[in-house]
């Protein structure tokens, strides 16, 4: 198992996702001899997990069962331990496409935060790319390094514990793309620009507040970035359900041989309703291109 490569059989040391039901999942680290409690009972790692196929059903001690899933960055995003507010898959998907990330891309990111976007980037740039991620909080930087190692992706990433606004990304002229999710992104634009390759590249800045966006766009303009574009994307989840709609009774029809509807009959419809409230605002995404030097 790794977060950048699928495997078929669960092994000792793997991180797996236990699926207990709709919207109820948890990550666990597989260790020989260990046990994990679920709502349906205990799972014994040695007998129930190691050697089993990913995706199989595991019966727990109380008789109920769960599924064991191969980790993916998307599953990780909804199950990871939060150390900061994180980016969710909807934003991540658009960032990935609009920064044109692909295998071999060299990417700079700050701040690392809880590693939600980092894992997604690593999956996309593997096996030949590299991620340079900067986190100014020492403990979070350390935790991130630990997780990358556990998830077997540390060969693809370099974590630096420094302040990106003062010290930059630690590299220059090698990045295809830069991503900023920091309180004052305009302060990091100079460093972002120097990190990007001479032949040009893409930049994205994520900010919750429009004032931050305004200052960032200004800084991008001043530094010669082109095609500056700000957008927001929201995902709407449709709730698929069966509804029963009663039919009206208009009384018996004149000259009709049909059996009249004497009430109490209804029609069953399968439909999907949008949620009453749209997903909340996460942040604005500002993209730009650094042209060829």
């Amino acid at each position, binding site marked *: 198992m790794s977060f*950048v490569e*699928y495997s078929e059989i669960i092994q000792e040391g793997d991180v797996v996702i236990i*699926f207990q039901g*709709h919207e109820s999942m948890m990550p666990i680290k597989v260790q020989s001899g260990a046990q994990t409690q679920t*709502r*349906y009972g205990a799972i014994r790692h040695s007998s129930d997990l190691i050697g089993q*196929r*990913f*995706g199989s*059903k595991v019966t727990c001690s*109380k*008789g*109920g069962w769960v*599924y064991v*899933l191969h980790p*993916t*960055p*998307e599953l990780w995003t909804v199950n990871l331990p939060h150390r900061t507010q994180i980016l969710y*898959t909807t934003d*991540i*998907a658009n960032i*990935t*496409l*609009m920064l*044109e990330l*692909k*295998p*071999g891309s060299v990417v700079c990111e700050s701040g690392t935060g809880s590693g939600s976007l980092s894992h997604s980037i690593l*999956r*996309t740039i*593997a*096996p030949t790319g590299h991620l340079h991620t900067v986190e100014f909080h020492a403990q979070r930087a350390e935790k991130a390094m630990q997780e990358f190692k556990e998830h077997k992706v540390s060969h693809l990433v370099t974590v630096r514990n420094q302040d990106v606004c003062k010290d930059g990304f630690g590299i220059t002229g090698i990045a295809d793309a830069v991503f900023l999710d920091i309180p004052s992104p305009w302060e990091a634009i100079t460093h972002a620009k120097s990190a990007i390759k001479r032949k*040009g590249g893409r930049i994205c800045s994520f900010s919750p507040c*429009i004032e931050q*966006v*305004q200052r960032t*766009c*200004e800084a991008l*303009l001043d530094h*010669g*970035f082109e*095609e*500056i*574009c*700000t*957008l*927001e*994307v*929201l*995902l*709407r*989840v*449709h709730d*698929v359900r069966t509804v029963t709609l009663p039919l009206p009774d208009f009384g018996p029809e004149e000259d009709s041989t049909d059996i009249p509807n004497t009430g109490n009959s209804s029609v069953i419809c399968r439909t*999907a309703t949008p949620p009453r409230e*749209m997903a909340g605002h996460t942040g*604005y995404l*500002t993209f*730009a291109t650094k042209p*060829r030097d």
Partner: protein
Amino acid sequence: MAESVNDSDAESRISFGDYVVLKRGDVFKSVQVENKKKVIFEKQWFFLDNAVGQLFGTRFEIGAGGSLKLKAAKHSGDSLDSKEAGQDNRHILDDGKSQKLTRDDIETLKEQGLKGQHLYSIVNVFVYFSHLRYDTLAQILTLGNIHAGSKILVFETCAGLVLGSVMERMGGFGSVIQMYPGGGPTRAGMESFGFPSHFHETLHEFPLCKVNALLAGTLDLSEKDADGNRRSESSQETSGVSEERSSEPQSMEVSVDQQEEMRRVERERLREQKAQEKKVKMEEKRKKLASAAALLEGRNADGLVIASRFHPCPVLMGLLKFIAPSRPFVVYCQYREPLIECYTKLREQGGAISLRLTDSWLRHYQVLPNRTHPVLLMSGGGGYLLSGTTVAADSAKTRNQHKSEEHVAKRLKLDEISSA
């Protein structure tokens, strides 16, 4: 756009014969670069000759006599222009009025493909032909966990746009099997990505009409010709014919012109050459079918992407059989109801979890000092996605067991409380 590993500029330089996209603000035009050919764009005429040898993305000015000159280094004032252009670039999707591409341009782009554009530009232009908005495409690629080294099944009728995007995210590693309806796979859109040749080795195709045979284990991969006759029979036929023909000249030798004889021999040679070429093509086709079948029959593909005008339900139910457990699948449909059907069917049948029916809203902003506000909201028109994860196939028996187990668990809890 795929770029060469050693980062050379060679592939990014304009050559004669290339189809390029001219861009001025939010107006695009596709033209072919031809020697001394007059091009008209945005009410100006010029020649593209001076563009040859320059890099894609270079800015030009139109000088005297219609010749192109490299544009001087830009000042930040100029960026304002391109910034707005960059925003309007995305507007082309929704507002028919701002679209300046003519019908001809679109047809040209469709046929000839693009070169030298960033993917997001390609996506913007291609959306005209496929109703697939780029934010929906973004979701497909990420929800599908498309990455290097996996084995992905794709079924799409988006002119190859989805296929190309998947291939780009695979980076030439792993394999992509394109399932296709009818005669052959359409890949025009994929070609425009400009992948290096080794990428094409990872691309396979398999016809839908042979899926059932493959699943049943009855797929015939032996050598056959186009008519489905066994090869040996047909080759006997052709050799029989040539025997007849070769006997003819002998009897007519006395009366026929020598030139006539040469022509006859030449015709025979061409006939045989054509038959030989046909044989080679059939063999190639057979080999391709066999290699795709070999990849599919393990039923261990790592992901499934469906984006077509076909009803998604039977396509999904049919192709899911090839996917390993604990792998993602994503189905795009312009309309919601067919995906509701898929959802319902999957619930009944089992074998899939975390089913989600979604669509995304996209809003653009104009960001200018004292003039910042949203400009465009794109919603609903981007189509819908059904995504989920496969799991080990569920038998009805065990599912019911689960239901009763839930009751047991609840009862246990109550007992615990009462005994406390």
